């Protein structure tokens, strides 16, 4: 289901990525996202098509919609899944979720209510390679909405293009320990073809955007290399990098738990270490050019 103001161009992309049928619902009140119109339209489509499962992205808006829709449909919703499987015997959707504390994993099912709803953490599944030759069905459905269906009005939005750190091959990650100074981290990232990621504290402080948050509330990433600077290593953070191939941790506290989930550990001030690292890379780069 594609809901929005002008989403037709996205239908071909969805089909190329594996969708068989795309249901398009277009209406000016569906753009930008607000809860009431989206819930109304999506609930109507679900009642009409009666899917077994309904999956949404676990982004702020995805969670805003899913929580409301599940109650309207009186069904179960497994939030923030880090994996989805189908139980072979029962045919049920099994959602894997992470809990608090020392890395707890639980699986949740919705045996008797339909649809089985789940929101899926950004980045837990690898994005399919689009195949432009794939064929599919696009159905434009009528949408009935009026101003009365929209109780929350968007006055103003400020969005950046947004980065998708779930696809990053390399990450330079900063936490509270970088004390708001992401300049060196950005420089290193630029130099080595990496994206900048951050812990929740760094995002909540406003040092970088929400789209760069790694972890339980943020994104699950799976880079080849992650250099993690000034992050203590709470489980809510480390679930977001546990699939990284190589993790480097730089932290001034020898006892920081981040070192338990790192391949290379440096107990030192992050800026003292990054400066010579950047120097060395810059020298190598200059050498190559010359």
């Amino acid at each position: 289901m594609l809901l929005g103001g002008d989403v037709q161009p996205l239908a071909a992309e969805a089909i190329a990525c594996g969708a068989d049928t795309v249901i398009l619902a277009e209406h000016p009140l569906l753009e930008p996202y607000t809860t009431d119109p989206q819930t109304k339209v999506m609930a109507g489509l679900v009642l009409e098509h009666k899917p077994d499962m309904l999956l949404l992205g676990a982004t702020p808006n995805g969670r805003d919609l899913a929580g409301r829709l599940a109650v309207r449909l009186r069904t179960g919703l497994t939030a923030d899944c880090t994996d989805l499987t189908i139980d072979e015997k029962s045919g049920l959707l099994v959602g894997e979720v992470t809990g608090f504390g020392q890395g707890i994993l639980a699986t949740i099912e919705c045996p008797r209510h339909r649809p089985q709803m789940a929101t899926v953490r950004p980045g837990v599944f690898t994005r399919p390679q689009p195949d432009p030759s794939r064929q599919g069905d696009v159905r434009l459905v009528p949408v009935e909405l009026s101003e009365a269906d929209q109780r929350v009005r968007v006055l103003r939005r400020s969005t950046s293009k947004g980065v998708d750190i779930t696809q990053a091959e390399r990450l330079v990650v900063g936490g509270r320990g970088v004390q708001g100074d992401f300049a060196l981290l950005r420089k290193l990232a630029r130099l080595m073809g990496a994206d900048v990621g951050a812990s929740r504290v760094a995002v909540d402080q406003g040092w970088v955007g929400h789209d760069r948050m790694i972890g339980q509330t943020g994104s699950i990433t799976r880079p080849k290399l992650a250099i993690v600077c000034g992050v203590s290593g709470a489980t809510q953070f480390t679930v977001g990098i546990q699939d990284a191939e190589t993790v480097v941790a730089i932290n001034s506290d020898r006892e920081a738990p981040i070192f338990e989930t790192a391949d290379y550990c440096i107990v030192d001030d992050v800026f003292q270490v990054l400066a010579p690292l950047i120097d060395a890379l810059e020298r190598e780069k200059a050498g190559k050019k010359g």
Partner: protein
Amino acid sequence: MPGLHTIVCLKVVPKSEEVSVDPETRTLDRGNARSEINGQDMNALEAALDLKDTYGGRITILSMGPPFFEPFLRLGLAMGADAAYLMSDRAFGGADTLATSYTLAAGIKAIGGCDLVLCGEESSDGATAQVPPGIAEWLDLPQITYVSRVQVMKKARLLRARRQLQSGYEMVETLLPCVLSVKLGINEPRFLDFQRWEWAMEEAPVTVWTAADLGLDEGYLGLPGSPTAVSSVGAAPSAQRRGEFLSGTPQEEAQQLLERIRPLVRLS
């Protein structure tokens, strides 16, 4: 004109760093974990107190949970809330977000409604962020989630909020009453007011409600009212990491690191 009546939905959670998985039984061990008020809910309470400071009115705390929640609700009273209700009944046990939001919405109706419901963005143990939209739907009220700033124009009964998006933020407005969920850390929760302490701890009524008190249908409550079921719980497998400590001066450390990660770096 009377002030605002705000209901704050507040949950008590185990301190997450003190919860573990029993390696034998692979079940959750909360045995030694101390409890605290969910961090985001403290921010919701502070936001409510801030509105009360500006516009007057009163604050009601609402919570669903076991009897040991009560002293925590009293802390909220000592901070400045006026009344507290604890929905506590075995019938509420095992509630998922559908049943929890149903129960809390029923509590809000029983209190007699309000101008504003304030929740935390998510709870540190449930961490679903679904309860606030659920409450809003049961009450048929507008919702604004992931709020980092609130402003009320009381005369017009208009509320403006700044709301977090995946890559940015938006300013939205709606008419009261409505349901909000606030982000962790949007304000600095105040200290207890020691002049309220004795009243809060001893005199203030904390009303405890059972399902029967409110005439709630048990089919909607607790385990029977929950469409989702936990099918397994266990410790997350931890990736095997090398755990190699590099040492020396920062320069030497950087050099050793570079030798090890050089194949993974593409100079650009």
